[in-house]
């Protein structure tokens, strides 16, 4: 009930802000806008990309409890591009606090040992400094969530993700052999528990069901460094490519479509995009997407 209320409220405030004429980017700010910003500093381009969508205030209401879900899956360093860039995270946490959030939680269900991944990724240091709450998964807090999907019905989810008002998804763009790529929708694997590997069968369908059955308020894709090969864990620096780009979108599917384009893959290579399109989650054709690019 609470969640529904907040969704309603946020929809109301969002539309109110949308109608108001005083905006940083009035012409481009639409609810379906996807911002793609390229630049030298990951911190700056993250901030700019959110501003292009109308600023964090459009998404976050005062006194909100906000969950930020980066990819902290692997015991790897920033340069190896297996985890979300901590600088991107720093920018987002700052913006969320500035927008009046009461509490910010950063959390992921990693593949490697959580204590190691949180530390080596550099995310622990940044988050602890920022005043946000860095949380580890706790298997005692798993609850069964009904995704009401076509393939994926009920699956255990960490309560922490369901108890918040707003959810910001911060994936890193990476190669992923079985899913095609890992971007926004694939990043939602981090909210669930249980034997996640089981979902690799019909992975595309499952990912689309996961993304549809769980409300994401904002997706900020870190494509500053991308892992071109041997993902999602990587390790070799020669597989990493500097793209210096952030993609920001409210629609999780359309953000992913832009990311696939940036990576240089075809939509057909990424099954979950097709599956999400079939579920009516948005456009899969990049020419039909309201995309604004900026180079700073």
């Amino acid at each position: 009930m609470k969640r529904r209320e907040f969704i309603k409220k946020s929809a109301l405030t969002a539309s109110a802000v949308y109608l108001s004429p005083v905006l940083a980017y009035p012409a481009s700010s639409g609810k379906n806008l996807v911002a793609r910003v390229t630049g030298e500093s990951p911190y700056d381009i993250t901030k700019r990309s959110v501003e292009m969508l109308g600023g964090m205030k459009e998404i976050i209401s005062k006194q909100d409890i906000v969950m930020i879900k980066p990819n902290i899956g692997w015991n790897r360093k920033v340069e190896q591009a297996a985890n979300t860039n901590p600088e991107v995270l720093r920018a987002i946490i700052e913006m969320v606090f500035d927008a009046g959030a009461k509490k910010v939680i950063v959390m992921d269900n990693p593949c490697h040992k959580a204590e190691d991944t949180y530390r080596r990724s550099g995310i622990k240091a940044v988050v602890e400094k920022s005043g946000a709450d860095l949380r580890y998964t706790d298997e005692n807090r798993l609850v069964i969530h009904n995704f009401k999907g076509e393939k994926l019905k009920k699956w255990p989810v960490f309560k922490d993700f369901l108890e918040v008002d707003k959810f910001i998804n911060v994936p890193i763009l990476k190669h992923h052999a079985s899913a095609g790529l890992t971007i926004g929708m694939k990043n939602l694997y981090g909210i669930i528990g249980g034997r996640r590997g089981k979902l690799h069968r019909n992975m595309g369908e499952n990912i689309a069901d996961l993304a549809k059955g769980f409300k994401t308020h904002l997706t900020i894709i870190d494509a500053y460094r991308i892992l071109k090969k041997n993902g999602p864990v990587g390790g070799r620096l020669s597989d990493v490519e500097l793209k210096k780009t952030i993609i920001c979108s409210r629609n999780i599917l359309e953000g992913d479509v832009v990311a696939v384009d940036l990576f240089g893959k075809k939509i057909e290579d990424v099954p979950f995009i097709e599956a999400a399109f079939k579920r009516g989650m948005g456009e899969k054709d990049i020419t039909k997407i309201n995309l604004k690019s900026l180079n700073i």
Partner: protein
Amino acid sequence: MSVKTNKKKLLRIISQILFLVVFFYLLIRTGAAATESFVYSDYFFYFDPLLLIINFLATHTLAAIFLLSLIPVFLTLIFGRFFCGWICPMGTINHFFSWIFRRKKTSGVEVVEKKLLKLKYIILLFVIVMTIFGTNIGGWFDPFSLLTRSTTLVVNPSVNYLTETTLKAGAKDTGILAKGLKPVYNFAKEKVLPNKKRGYLQSVLIGIIFFLIIISNYYKRRFYCNYICPLGALYGLISKFSLLNLRVDTKSCKECNICSSGCTYNGSPFKDYLKSECMVCYNCEDDCTPDSITTEFRFKGVERNKIDLGRRRMSGSIVSGIFLSSLPRISGVSISKTHPFERPPGSVTEDEFLDKCIRCGECMQACPTNFIQPAFFETGIDGIWTPILEALTGYCEYECNRCTQVCPTNAIEKLTLEQKKEFKIGTAVIDKDRCYTYADGYNCAVCEEHCPVPEKAIRFREVDTWNFEGKLVKVKQIYVIPDLCIGCGICENVCPRSDAPGIINTSEEEQREFEY
């Protein structure tokens, strides 16, 4: 007990607590605490002359670092068996429980269980003979190995489990209790307890043994130290020549036997002072009301009552040691051409490993993912509690070399992180009857995803195959490149099959046996 505690006794208690705290601090730091900078807890092992002897006998080489154990040996020549009473953490724990279980009054003169006291010398002799003939079982009895093993495999996980369960149950409740406990639970879960529950395959057996050792203190004070510990026996032998002696003033002594009420070897110091058994605890000096008991430095010992092992017992121990040492060598895995189990990265060849390993469990404590497990009889009957790798409980973390840093006897040799990443523990082998990409004919590849080798030792090839519906489909089937695979076991660990994994980590091509 007198109202005023003897200063020497007080000092002894402080020393015991101090060394106990240091021991546990080092051990916990070795553990999988979320830090990369940690101190090694094997320092205690280097001060253990028993390990010096058995390590020398087993490997025929002298590890220089074990010469540190000559320091307590030298000190024993002066102060007697002070090590047991003042330093040994296992001794302190036994001492503490003996004190907990103490009885109010001793009626009559206690008779020293001399027969039982001989047992530890027999065990010492037995252990040494076994080691000479190729079966190193020193670690079964050595107090440091015993305590490290018991703490790592039993006490630590058990305390964590009980804490979590209690707090969880409390936090679930509604009302005031839950309100108070919830923040405690959250704090404990975030900061203190390990993120994932830890456990060990041999915890039950080791736990029961540890429990019995603790409970035996009810029967006799410091039971383990007096009757079993071979290190205590070794110090007992050395302390025969020590300078520090007990002196009983026979004129003032009322033979009240109060000195027996705290004696660590369960004796009556006023009439049968056993120098080799005395742990210099100063309890008798403290307890003695007429102050008849004192200590003095003297060259000539005044042992009132000697322990004589007897020729029969000694030869019996030697002969049985020789005979029994051959048994593990002529049976079980040691005569098999292959061994299916794997050892931690950096391990030496199997024969040398069994010689060197003292079953202390340091590597298991250091392993952050619970991959290293104590063996039962998998590696032979004499290999009990040696470390083996169990991919169903953990995996070898690619960016970690902690287990290679903590082994006190170098059964696991020191490797840098770069060396460890290259070290081939074993190889993954696909079970095609189970792997989804073969048996059921659909894409899965969780193992490929997790493979930490940058070039990927697990890859796909697209093939036409029949799936579980009988249809001909294109499937990305996995295959392993043995030359790249390092045998870290994460593939087996993450395999989504619920019954048994479709890919198994085995000792195939393990580097320690075949380097080419």
